[in-house]
């Protein structure tokens, strides 16, 4: 009542509005929400107070406590999780050693120009997606391996990214100087590409890796992929701020690959 009163609600509506506020708080606590928003709250001509629209967000980490909500994957999704999304979630579900986030960005598997996208960190992901879109390419998926994940988790993400049938390239988008030892990315990506590239000879890969143990990590990637049959370009911190260059190289390799395949 005090809250409603201090918000300037007229006396005749105080009880009803205070009731709404109390219920919102109850729902917030009971459902482990991070947001409950009613907007607009409507006063009808008949004097009733009703919610015109509302939004409720649940703390992702509390999803397991609410089976009654039927949440398949406790993340924000623009659609019902696809089979691909379910595989991606399987990496994260019980393994909390750093992030290994993978989800589809587009359900379109007919258009050309999709790239298997593997970023290292959320900021790097945004820069990487911009780099692709500026040259007319598109991320087929979102992926992020940051927070110092173990190599096995990074490998799983790379394998799932590379499992997409319609991609025309693979971009490891380490667009920031990561505060994690990058040799775990190096070992993981080398293993994944050594397994996958023989199935797709000439497949374009642009690998940008910068951060702790960068020199050693780049050496692992160069050495480990030396005789692997792909179009592989490897860059470090000298290109970490040059997203235009990385996008252009990705496009150039994709165009070569298309020409070779006659597509």
């Amino acid at each position, binding site marked *: 009542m005090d809250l409603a009163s201090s918000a300037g609600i007229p006396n005749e509506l105080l009880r009803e509005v205070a009731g709404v506020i109390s219920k919102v708080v109850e729902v917030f606590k009971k459902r482990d929400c991070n947001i409950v928003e009613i907007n607009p709250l409507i006063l009808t001509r008949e004097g009733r107070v009703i919610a015109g629209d509302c939004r409720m967000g649940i703390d992702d980490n509390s999803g397991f406590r609410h089976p009654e909500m039927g949440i398949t994957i406790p993340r924000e999704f623009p659609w019902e999780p696809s089979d691909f999304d379910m595989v991606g979630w399987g990496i994260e579900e019980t393994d909390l050693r750093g992030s290994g986030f993978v989800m589809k960005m587009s359900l379109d598997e007919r258009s050309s120009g999709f790239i298997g996208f593997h970023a290292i960190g959320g900021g790097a992901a945004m820069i990487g997606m911009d780099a692709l879109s500026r040259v007319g390419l598109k991320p087929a998926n979102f992926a992020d391996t940051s927070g110092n994940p*173990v190599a096995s988790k990074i490998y799983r993400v790379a394998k799932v990214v590379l499992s997409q049938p319609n991609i025309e390239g693979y971009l490891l988008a380490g667009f920031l100087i990561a505060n994690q030892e990058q040799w775990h990315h190096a*070992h*993981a990506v080398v293993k994944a590409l050594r397994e996958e590239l023989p*199935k797709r000879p000439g497949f374009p890969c642009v690998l940008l890796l910068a951060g702790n143990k960068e020199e050693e990590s780049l050496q692992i990637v160069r050495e*480990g992929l030396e005789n692997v049959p792909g179009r592989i370009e490897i860059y470090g911190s000298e290109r970490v701020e040059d997203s235009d260059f990385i996008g252009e190289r990705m496009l150039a390799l994709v165009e070569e690959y298309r020409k070779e395949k006659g597509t």
Partner: protein
Amino acid sequence: MPTEFEERTIKVIIDTNKCPDCVSQACIEACKVYSRGLLQLDDGKPSVSHLSSEEVRRRGTECLACEYECWQRGNNAIRIEIPIKGLDDYLKKRNIK
């Protein structure tokens, strides 16, 4: 018989028949640099027999470095299996090879 051990989510399989000829023994050093030195030489072969299986699971960091070093500088004796839940079914369903 190959040596096998499991870390938390992976299985490491070492064909120790290939190890006596190995001059680099790079897996041992890699395990110290990239992980916690689980692998030790036992009669010229990499082994975790000095640890209980619980200790191996607890200490292992799944760094994959021993497999890489064995490819590059050893006798290609190490294979690491990393299962990915649901991926085989997804590929089969989509008819992807």
